[in-house]
Protein backbone atom coordinates (compact mmCIF):
# COMPACT_ATOMS: atom_id res chain seq x y z
CA UNK A 1 0.00 0.00 0.00
CA UNK A 2 1.37 3.38 -0.96
CA UNK A 3 1.06 5.92 1.79
CA UNK A 4 0.07 9.53 1.47
CA UNK A 5 0.04 10.70 5.08
CA UNK A 6 1.52 9.02 8.11
CA UNK A 7 0.98 10.30 11.60
CA UNK A 8 2.89 8.49 14.31
CA UNK A 9 1.96 9.30 17.85
CA UNK A 10 1.28 12.92 17.02
CA UNK A 11 0.39 15.17 19.92
CA UNK A 12 -0.22 18.87 19.91
CA UNK A 13 -0.03 20.96 23.02
CA UNK A 14 -1.12 24.55 23.26
CA UNK A 15 -0.08 26.85 26.03
CA UNK A 16 -3.05 28.72 27.36
CA UNK A 17 -1.53 31.81 28.82
CA UNK A 18 -3.78 33.64 31.16
CA UNK A 19 -2.84 37.20 31.68
CA UNK A 20 -0.77 36.82 28.52
CA UNK A 21 1.15 39.93 27.78
CA UNK A 22 1.97 40.90 24.24
CA UNK A 23 4.18 43.74 25.34
CA UNK A 24 7.87 43.80 25.85
CA UNK A 25 7.18 46.61 28.29
CA UNK A 26 4.84 44.59 30.49
CA UNK A 27 7.13 41.60 30.17
CA UNK A 28 9.95 43.66 31.62
CA UNK A 29 7.70 44.93 34.41
CA UNK A 30 6.62 41.41 35.30
CA UNK A 31 10.17 40.64 36.38
CA UNK A 32 9.57 42.94 39.33
CA UNK A 33 5.84 42.85 39.80
CA UNK A 34 4.15 39.47 40.28
CA UNK A 35 0.78 40.97 39.44
CA UNK A 36 1.79 41.09 35.80
CA UNK A 37 3.09 37.57 35.72
CA UNK A 38 1.35 35.21 33.37
CA UNK A 39 -0.08 31.86 34.35
CA UNK A 40 0.45 29.08 31.92
CA UNK A 41 -1.88 26.18 31.49
CA UNK A 42 -1.32 23.41 29.02
CA UNK A 43 -3.99 22.12 26.74
CA UNK A 44 -3.59 18.99 24.64
CA UNK A 45 -5.52 19.48 21.43
CA UNK A 46 -4.27 16.16 20.09
CA UNK A 47 -2.97 13.21 22.06
CA UNK A 48 -0.95 10.44 20.55
CA UNK A 49 -2.77 10.23 17.24
CA UNK A 50 -1.52 7.49 14.96
CA UNK A 51 -3.14 7.35 11.57
CA UNK A 52 -2.09 6.29 8.12
CA UNK A 53 -3.87 7.52 5.04
CA UNK A 54 -3.24 5.50 1.91
CA UNK A 55 -2.71 7.08 -1.45
CA UNK A 56 -6.00 7.67 -3.25
CA UNK A 57 -7.98 6.98 -0.12
CA UNK A 58 -10.55 9.38 1.18
CA UNK A 59 -10.93 9.59 4.88
CA UNK A 60 -13.49 11.46 6.94
CA UNK A 61 -12.84 12.88 10.38
CA UNK A 62 -15.77 13.30 12.75
CA UNK A 63 -15.97 14.54 16.30
CA UNK A 64 -17.69 17.12 18.43
CA UNK A 65 -16.62 20.76 18.52
CA UNK A 66 -13.22 21.22 20.08
CA UNK A 67 -12.17 17.61 19.62
CA UNK A 68 -9.11 18.53 17.58
CA UNK A 69 -10.30 18.02 14.01
CA UNK A 70 -9.10 21.33 12.66
CA UNK A 71 -5.85 21.06 14.57
CA UNK A 72 -5.30 17.70 12.91
CA UNK A 73 -5.86 19.21 9.46
CA UNK A 74 -3.54 22.09 10.22
CA UNK A 75 -0.83 19.69 11.26
CA UNK A 76 -1.28 17.75 8.02
CA UNK A 77 -1.10 21.01 6.07
CA UNK A 78 2.11 22.03 7.84
CA UNK A 79 0.58 25.09 9.47
CA UNK A 80 1.15 23.71 12.96
CA UNK A 81 4.17 21.74 14.05
CA UNK A 82 3.37 18.70 16.20
CA UNK A 83 4.57 19.01 19.81
CA UNK A 84 5.65 15.40 19.70
CA UNK A 85 5.31 12.53 17.30
CA UNK A 86 6.07 12.40 13.65
CA UNK A 87 4.36 13.41 10.45
CA UNK A 88 5.34 12.18 7.01
CA UNK A 89 3.57 13.46 3.93
CA UNK A 90 4.15 12.02 0.48
CA UNK A 91 2.84 14.26 -2.25
CA UNK A 92 1.61 17.76 -2.80
CA UNK A 93 -0.82 18.88 -0.11
CA UNK A 94 -3.32 21.58 -0.87
CA UNK A 95 -2.01 23.93 1.77
CA UNK A 96 -5.30 25.51 2.68
CA UNK A 97 -7.85 24.19 5.07
CA UNK A 98 -10.61 26.61 4.40
CA UNK A 99 -12.20 27.70 1.17
CA UNK A 100 -11.52 31.15 -0.13
CA UNK A 101 -8.82 31.85 2.41
CA UNK A 102 -6.10 34.03 1.01
CA UNK A 103 -8.53 35.96 -1.14
CA UNK A 104 -7.93 39.66 -1.05
CA UNK A 105 -11.34 41.30 -1.04
CA UNK A 106 -10.10 44.38 -2.85
CA UNK A 107 -9.03 42.33 -5.84
CA UNK A 108 -11.31 40.98 -8.53
CA UNK A 109 -12.30 37.34 -8.87
CA UNK A 110 -9.84 36.92 -11.72
CA UNK A 111 -6.93 38.34 -9.73
CA UNK A 112 -7.82 36.23 -6.74
CA UNK A 113 -7.72 33.06 -8.78
CA UNK A 114 -4.14 33.86 -9.75
CA UNK A 115 -3.27 34.90 -6.20
CA UNK A 116 -4.66 31.69 -4.74
CA UNK A 117 -2.92 29.60 -7.37
CA UNK A 118 0.36 31.28 -6.51
CA UNK A 119 -0.07 30.23 -2.87
CA UNK A 120 -0.19 26.76 -4.33
CA UNK A 121 3.03 27.49 -6.20
CA UNK A 122 1.45 27.43 -9.61
CA UNK A 123 3.10 29.64 -12.18
CA UNK A 124 1.13 32.16 -14.19
CA UNK A 125 1.18 29.89 -17.23
CA UNK A 126 -0.02 26.87 -15.26
CA UNK A 127 -2.85 28.96 -13.90
CA UNK A 128 -3.75 30.21 -17.38
CA UNK A 129 -4.30 26.60 -18.37
CA UNK A 130 -6.91 25.93 -15.68
CA UNK A 131 -8.34 29.43 -15.42
CA UNK A 132 -11.29 28.89 -17.77
CA UNK A 133 -12.31 25.69 -16.04
CA UNK A 134 -12.27 27.39 -12.64
CA UNK A 135 -14.47 30.23 -13.84
CA UNK A 136 -16.86 27.87 -15.61
CA UNK A 137 -17.17 25.72 -12.52
CA UNK A 138 -17.82 28.65 -10.22
CA UNK A 139 -20.45 30.03 -12.64
CA UNK A 140 -19.16 33.51 -11.98
CA UNK A 141 -18.34 34.56 -15.55
CA UNK A 142 -20.43 37.67 -15.22
CA UNK A 143 -18.75 38.84 -12.01
CA UNK A 144 -15.20 37.70 -12.52
CA UNK A 145 -13.87 41.24 -12.92
CA UNK A 146 -15.78 42.53 -9.92
CA UNK A 147 -13.91 42.99 -6.63
CA UNK A 148 -14.53 40.05 -4.35
CA UNK A 149 -15.77 42.34 -1.58
CA UNK A 150 -18.95 42.82 -3.59
CA UNK A 151 -19.59 39.08 -3.83
CA UNK A 152 -22.33 37.42 -1.85
CA UNK A 153 -21.29 34.78 0.69
CA UNK A 154 -22.34 32.04 -1.70
CA UNK A 155 -20.40 33.50 -4.61
CA UNK A 156 -17.31 33.82 -2.46
CA UNK A 157 -17.56 30.20 -1.34
CA UNK A 158 -18.18 29.00 -4.89
CA UNK A 159 -15.06 30.70 -6.15
CA UNK A 160 -13.08 29.31 -3.22
CA UNK A 161 -14.23 25.78 -3.87
CA UNK A 162 -13.70 26.08 -7.60
CA UNK A 163 -10.09 27.16 -7.10
CA UNK A 164 -9.35 24.53 -4.47
CA UNK A 165 -10.56 21.58 -6.50
CA UNK A 166 -8.97 22.64 -9.76
CA UNK A 167 -5.46 23.07 -8.42
CA UNK A 168 -5.19 19.29 -8.71
CA UNK A 169 -3.45 18.63 -5.42
CA UNK A 170 -2.38 15.07 -4.67
CA UNK A 171 -3.73 15.46 -1.18
CA UNK A 172 -6.77 17.61 -0.50
CA UNK A 173 -7.63 18.71 3.02
CA UNK A 174 -11.08 20.14 3.49
CA UNK A 175 -12.80 21.49 6.54
CA UNK A 176 -16.60 21.58 6.21
CA UNK A 177 -16.80 21.73 2.47
CA UNK A 178 -20.50 21.46 1.90
CA UNK A 179 -21.57 24.68 3.44
CA UNK A 180 -21.12 25.88 -0.12
CA UNK A 181 -23.87 27.35 -2.23
CA UNK A 182 -27.35 26.07 -2.96
CA UNK A 183 -28.38 22.46 -3.32
CA UNK A 184 -27.65 22.27 -7.01
CA UNK A 185 -24.17 23.68 -6.52
CA UNK A 186 -23.57 21.32 -3.63
CA UNK A 187 -24.36 18.40 -5.88
CA UNK A 188 -21.92 19.76 -8.42
CA UNK A 189 -19.29 19.94 -5.69
CA UNK A 190 -19.98 16.36 -4.66
CA UNK A 191 -19.67 15.25 -8.27
CA UNK A 192 -16.36 17.06 -8.58
CA UNK A 193 -15.08 15.46 -5.38
CA UNK A 194 -16.11 12.06 -6.69
CA UNK A 195 -14.26 12.87 -9.87
CA UNK A 196 -11.10 13.78 -7.92
CA UNK A 197 -11.44 10.56 -5.93
CA UNK A 198 -11.65 8.47 -9.06
CA UNK A 199 -8.52 10.10 -10.35
CA UNK A 200 -6.63 9.08 -7.25
CA UNK A 201 -6.61 12.23 -5.15
CA UNK A 202 -6.18 11.54 -1.47
CA UNK A 203 -8.87 13.39 0.46
CA UNK A 204 -9.09 14.20 4.14
CA UNK A 205 -12.50 15.58 4.94
CA UNK A 206 -13.67 17.07 8.20
CA UNK A 207 -17.41 17.33 8.44
CA UNK A 208 -20.39 17.30 10.71
CA UNK A 209 -22.53 16.07 7.83
CA UNK A 210 -22.65 12.33 8.44
CA UNK A 211 -24.29 11.66 5.08
CA UNK A 212 -21.35 13.24 3.30
CA UNK A 213 -18.86 11.17 5.23
CA UNK A 214 -20.83 7.99 4.56
CA UNK A 215 -21.10 8.56 0.84
CA UNK A 216 -17.70 10.10 0.16
CA UNK A 217 -15.27 8.33 2.40
CA UNK A 218 -13.64 4.91 2.34
CA UNK A 219 -12.74 5.21 5.96
CA UNK A 220 -13.46 7.44 8.91
CA UNK A 221 -11.85 8.45 12.16
CA UNK A 222 -13.54 9.68 15.33
CA UNK A 223 -11.77 12.24 17.48
CA UNK A 224 -12.78 12.98 21.04
CA UNK A 225 -10.82 15.24 23.38
CA UNK A 226 -7.87 14.99 21.04
CA UNK A 227 -7.73 11.21 20.98
CA UNK A 228 -8.49 9.05 18.00
CA UNK A 229 -11.22 6.95 19.59
CA UNK A 230 -12.20 4.88 16.61
CA UNK A 231 -11.11 4.32 13.08
CA UNK A 232 -12.37 2.19 10.22
CA UNK A 233 -15.55 1.67 8.26
CA UNK A 234 -17.48 4.98 8.11
CA UNK A 235 -20.79 3.40 9.12
CA UNK A 236 -19.35 1.83 12.25
CA UNK A 237 -17.35 4.90 13.22
CA UNK A 238 -20.35 7.16 12.81
CA UNK A 239 -22.41 4.82 14.99
CA UNK A 240 -19.74 4.98 17.65
CA UNK A 241 -19.57 8.76 17.39
CA UNK A 242 -23.33 9.02 17.81
CA UNK A 243 -23.28 6.71 20.82
CA UNK A 244 -20.54 8.81 22.40
CA UNK A 245 -22.50 11.98 21.70
CA UNK A 246 -25.49 10.52 23.49
CA UNK A 247 -23.32 9.61 26.42
CA UNK A 248 -21.83 13.11 26.50
CA UNK A 249 -25.30 14.59 26.27
CA UNK A 250 -26.48 12.44 29.16
CA UNK A 251 -23.45 13.43 31.26
CA UNK A 252 -24.08 17.07 30.54
CA UNK A 253 -27.73 16.66 31.47
CA UNK A 254 -26.74 15.05 34.78
CA UNK A 255 -24.16 17.72 35.45
CA UNK A 256 -26.52 20.59 34.87
CA UNK A 257 -29.69 18.80 36.05
Amino acid at each position, binding site marked *: MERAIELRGVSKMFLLKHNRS*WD*LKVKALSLFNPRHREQVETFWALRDVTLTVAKGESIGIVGPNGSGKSTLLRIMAGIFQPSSGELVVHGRVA*PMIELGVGFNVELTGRENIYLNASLFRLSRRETDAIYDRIVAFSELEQFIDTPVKNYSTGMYARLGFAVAVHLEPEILLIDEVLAVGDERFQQKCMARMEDLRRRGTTIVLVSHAMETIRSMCDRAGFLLHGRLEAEGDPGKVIAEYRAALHLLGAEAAVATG
Partner: protein
Amino acid sequence: MMLVVYTIAFKYVMRTGIPHFTFFLLAGLMPWQFFAGALTASTHAIVGNGNLIRKVYFPREVLPVATVLFTFTQFILAMAAVLPVVILIDGVPLSWVALMVIPLALVHLLFTIGCAFALSALTTSFRDVSHFTEFALMLLFWLTPIVYQVQMAPGPLKVFFRTSPLAAFTVAYQDILVRGVLPDLAVGTTVIAWAVVTLVLGHAIFRRRSAGFAELV
Protein backbone atom coordinates in the same frame (compact mmCIF):
# COMPACT_ATOMS: atom_id res chain seq x y z
CA MET B 1 8.24 67.28 1.34
CA MET B 2 10.85 66.40 3.96
CA LEU B 3 13.47 67.34 1.42
CA VAL B 4 12.11 70.88 1.13
CA VAL B 5 11.73 71.38 4.88
CA TYR B 6 15.20 70.06 5.68
CA THR B 7 16.72 72.11 2.89
CA ILE B 8 15.23 75.29 4.31
CA ALA B 9 16.17 74.38 7.88
CA PHE B 10 19.73 73.36 7.28
CA LYS B 11 20.75 75.33 4.24
CA TYR B 12 19.15 78.67 4.94
CA VAL B 13 18.45 78.76 8.65
CA MET B 14 21.37 76.88 10.12
CA ARG B 15 23.70 77.61 7.19
CA THR B 16 25.63 74.39 7.42
CA GLY B 17 27.49 75.31 4.29
CA ILE B 18 27.58 71.86 2.81
CA PRO B 19 28.10 72.22 -0.94
CA HIS B 20 25.13 71.15 -3.07
CA PHE B 21 23.10 70.72 0.08
CA THR B 22 19.82 69.68 -1.56
CA PHE B 23 21.58 66.97 -3.52
CA PHE B 24 23.60 65.90 -0.50
CA LEU B 25 20.42 65.66 1.53
CA LEU B 26 18.62 63.73 -1.15
CA ALA B 27 21.43 61.16 -1.39
CA GLY B 28 21.09 60.37 2.30
CA LEU B 29 17.43 60.98 2.95
CA MET B 30 15.81 58.88 0.25
CA PRO B 31 17.69 55.66 1.13
CA TRP B 32 16.89 56.38 4.77
CA GLN B 33 13.18 56.74 4.03
CA PHE B 34 13.27 53.43 2.21
CA PHE B 35 14.99 51.75 5.16
CA ALA B 36 12.74 53.30 7.81
CA GLY B 37 9.56 52.73 5.81
CA ALA B 38 10.43 49.11 5.11
CA LEU B 39 11.20 48.35 8.76
CA THR B 40 8.05 50.03 10.03
CA ALA B 41 5.97 48.09 7.52
CA SER B 42 7.80 44.84 8.24
CA THR B 43 6.70 44.82 11.88
CA HIS B 44 3.18 44.24 10.56
CA ALA B 45 4.18 41.76 7.85
CA ILE B 46 3.43 38.63 9.88
CA VAL B 47 1.00 39.91 12.50
CA GLY B 48 -1.11 41.74 9.93
CA ASN B 49 -1.57 38.58 7.88
CA GLY B 50 -2.72 36.38 10.75
CA ASN B 51 -5.68 34.96 8.92
CA LEU B 52 -3.55 33.79 6.04
CA ILE B 53 -0.94 32.28 8.32
CA ARG B 54 -3.45 30.37 10.39
CA LYS B 55 -5.11 28.83 7.38
CA VAL B 56 -2.62 28.41 4.60
CA TYR B 57 0.82 26.91 4.59
CA PHE B 58 3.43 28.71 2.52
CA PRO B 59 7.00 29.79 3.14
CA ARG B 60 6.54 32.56 5.69
CA GLU B 61 9.59 34.38 4.32
CA VAL B 62 7.40 35.63 1.49
CA LEU B 63 5.67 38.17 3.73
CA PRO B 64 8.57 40.28 5.05
CA VAL B 65 10.42 40.01 1.74
CA ALA B 66 7.36 41.20 -0.19
CA THR B 67 6.90 44.09 2.24
CA VAL B 68 10.48 45.24 1.79
CA LEU B 69 10.40 44.82 -1.99
CA PHE B 70 7.28 46.95 -2.17
CA THR B 71 8.98 49.81 -0.31
CA PHE B 72 12.13 49.28 -2.37
CA THR B 73 10.20 49.73 -5.61
CA GLN B 74 8.78 52.99 -4.31
CA PHE B 75 12.31 54.09 -3.40
CA ILE B 76 13.67 53.32 -6.87
CA LEU B 77 10.79 55.11 -8.56
CA ALA B 78 11.16 58.12 -6.28
CA MET B 79 14.90 58.27 -6.98
CA ALA B 80 14.29 58.04 -10.71
CA ALA B 81 11.80 60.89 -10.51
CA VAL B 82 13.58 63.26 -8.14
CA LEU B 83 17.23 62.72 -9.04
CA PRO B 84 17.15 64.32 -12.52
CA VAL B 85 15.24 67.35 -11.23
CA VAL B 86 17.68 68.03 -8.41
CA ILE B 87 20.65 67.50 -10.70
CA LEU B 88 19.24 70.03 -13.15
CA ILE B 89 18.44 72.63 -10.53
CA ASP B 90 21.52 72.13 -8.41
CA GLY B 91 23.77 71.74 -11.43
CA VAL B 92 25.86 68.87 -10.09
CA PRO B 93 28.07 67.17 -12.62
CA LEU B 94 27.25 63.48 -12.50
CA SER B 95 30.03 61.01 -13.20
CA TRP B 96 29.91 57.40 -14.27
CA VAL B 97 30.59 56.46 -10.67
CA ALA B 98 26.93 57.29 -10.00
CA LEU B 99 26.03 54.00 -11.69
CA MET B 100 27.55 52.24 -8.69
CA VAL B 101 24.41 53.29 -6.84
CA ILE B 102 22.71 50.22 -8.34
CA PRO B 103 24.88 47.58 -6.64
CA LEU B 104 24.86 49.70 -3.48
CA ALA B 105 21.06 49.82 -3.46
CA LEU B 106 20.97 46.03 -3.86
CA VAL B 107 23.29 45.51 -0.89
CA HIS B 108 21.14 47.98 1.04
CA LEU B 109 18.10 45.91 0.05
CA LEU B 110 19.66 42.72 1.45
CA PHE B 111 20.56 44.48 4.68
CA THR B 112 17.00 45.76 5.02
CA ILE B 113 15.52 42.32 4.34
CA GLY B 114 17.72 40.92 7.10
CA CYS B 115 16.42 43.49 9.57
CA ALA B 116 12.86 42.91 8.38
CA PHE B 117 13.18 39.15 9.04
CA ALA B 118 14.17 39.78 12.63
CA LEU B 119 11.61 42.49 13.33
CA SER B 120 8.64 40.75 11.71
CA ALA B 121 9.40 37.59 13.70
CA LEU B 122 9.84 39.39 17.00
CA THR B 123 6.60 41.33 16.63
CA THR B 124 4.65 38.05 16.77
CA SER B 125 5.67 37.63 20.41
CA PHE B 126 5.84 41.25 21.42
CA ARG B 127 3.41 43.57 19.71
CA ASP B 128 5.05 46.71 20.99
CA VAL B 129 8.17 45.97 18.96
CA SER B 130 6.53 48.09 16.29
CA HIS B 131 6.44 51.10 18.63
CA PHE B 132 10.01 50.54 19.70
CA THR B 133 11.02 50.30 16.07
CA GLU B 134 9.48 53.65 15.23
CA PHE B 135 11.10 55.25 18.24
CA ALA B 136 14.50 53.72 17.52
CA LEU B 137 14.33 54.85 13.91
CA MET B 138 13.67 58.40 15.03
CA LEU B 139 16.75 58.35 17.27
CA LEU B 140 18.88 56.67 14.65
CA PHE B 141 17.93 59.25 12.05
CA TRP B 142 19.76 61.94 14.01
CA LEU B 143 22.62 59.56 14.74
CA THR B 144 23.17 59.04 11.05
CA PRO B 145 24.98 61.64 8.94
CA ILE B 146 22.04 62.50 6.72
CA VAL B 147 21.42 66.18 7.39
CA TYR B 148 25.00 66.85 8.43
CA GLN B 149 28.38 65.59 7.31
CA VAL B 150 30.46 63.03 9.16
CA GLN B 151 33.25 65.59 9.50
CA MET B 152 30.96 67.94 11.42
CA ALA B 153 30.28 65.42 14.20
CA PRO B 154 32.14 65.46 17.52
CA GLY B 155 34.74 62.78 18.24
CA PRO B 156 32.69 60.16 20.09
CA LEU B 157 30.03 60.20 17.39
CA LYS B 158 32.68 59.64 14.74
CA VAL B 159 33.68 56.45 16.49
CA PHE B 160 30.05 55.36 16.42
CA PHE B 161 29.87 56.18 12.70
CA ARG B 162 32.75 53.86 12.00
CA THR B 163 30.73 50.85 13.12
CA SER B 164 27.16 51.91 12.40
CA PRO B 165 25.84 50.22 9.27
CA LEU B 166 23.36 53.04 8.77
CA ALA B 167 26.13 55.63 8.72
CA ALA B 168 28.17 53.47 6.37
CA PHE B 169 25.30 53.12 3.91
CA THR B 170 24.58 56.83 4.03
CA VAL B 171 28.20 57.77 3.47
CA ALA B 172 28.40 55.31 0.59
CA TYR B 173 25.36 56.85 -1.11
CA GLN B 174 26.75 60.36 -0.60
CA ASP B 175 30.19 59.39 -1.93
CA ILE B 176 28.80 57.79 -5.05
CA LEU B 177 26.12 60.31 -5.89
CA VAL B 178 27.38 63.65 -4.59
CA ARG B 179 31.14 63.42 -4.52
CA GLY B 180 31.35 61.12 -7.50
CA VAL B 181 33.94 58.88 -5.90
CA LEU B 182 33.87 55.25 -4.89
CA PRO B 183 33.45 54.74 -1.15
CA ASP B 184 36.70 53.89 0.58
CA LEU B 185 37.53 50.32 1.46
CA ALA B 186 36.46 50.63 5.11
CA VAL B 187 32.99 51.87 4.20
CA GLY B 188 32.63 49.28 1.43
CA THR B 189 33.59 46.42 3.72
CA THR B 190 31.35 47.65 6.53
CA VAL B 191 28.38 47.86 4.21
CA ILE B 192 28.82 44.41 2.72
CA ALA B 193 29.74 42.73 6.00
CA TRP B 194 26.70 44.16 7.76
CA ALA B 195 24.42 43.12 4.93
CA VAL B 196 25.65 39.53 5.03
CA VAL B 197 25.63 39.23 8.81
CA THR B 198 22.19 40.82 9.16
CA LEU B 199 20.68 38.68 6.45
CA VAL B 200 22.05 35.43 7.88
CA LEU B 201 21.24 36.30 11.48
CA GLY B 202 17.83 37.79 10.66
CA HIS B 203 16.85 34.74 8.68
CA ALA B 204 18.05 32.42 11.44
CA ILE B 205 15.84 34.23 13.95
CA PHE B 206 12.95 34.14 11.53
CA ARG B 207 13.44 30.44 10.80
CA ARG B 208 13.54 29.50 14.45
CA ARG B 209 10.33 31.30 15.22
CA SER B 210 8.35 30.77 12.03
CA ALA B 211 7.11 27.30 13.03
CA GLY B 212 5.16 28.89 15.85
CA PHE B 213 3.71 31.84 13.91
CA ALA B 214 0.35 30.17 13.33
CA GLU B 215 -0.17 29.90 17.08
CA LEU B 216 0.92 33.43 17.88
CA VAL B 217 -0.84 35.60 15.35
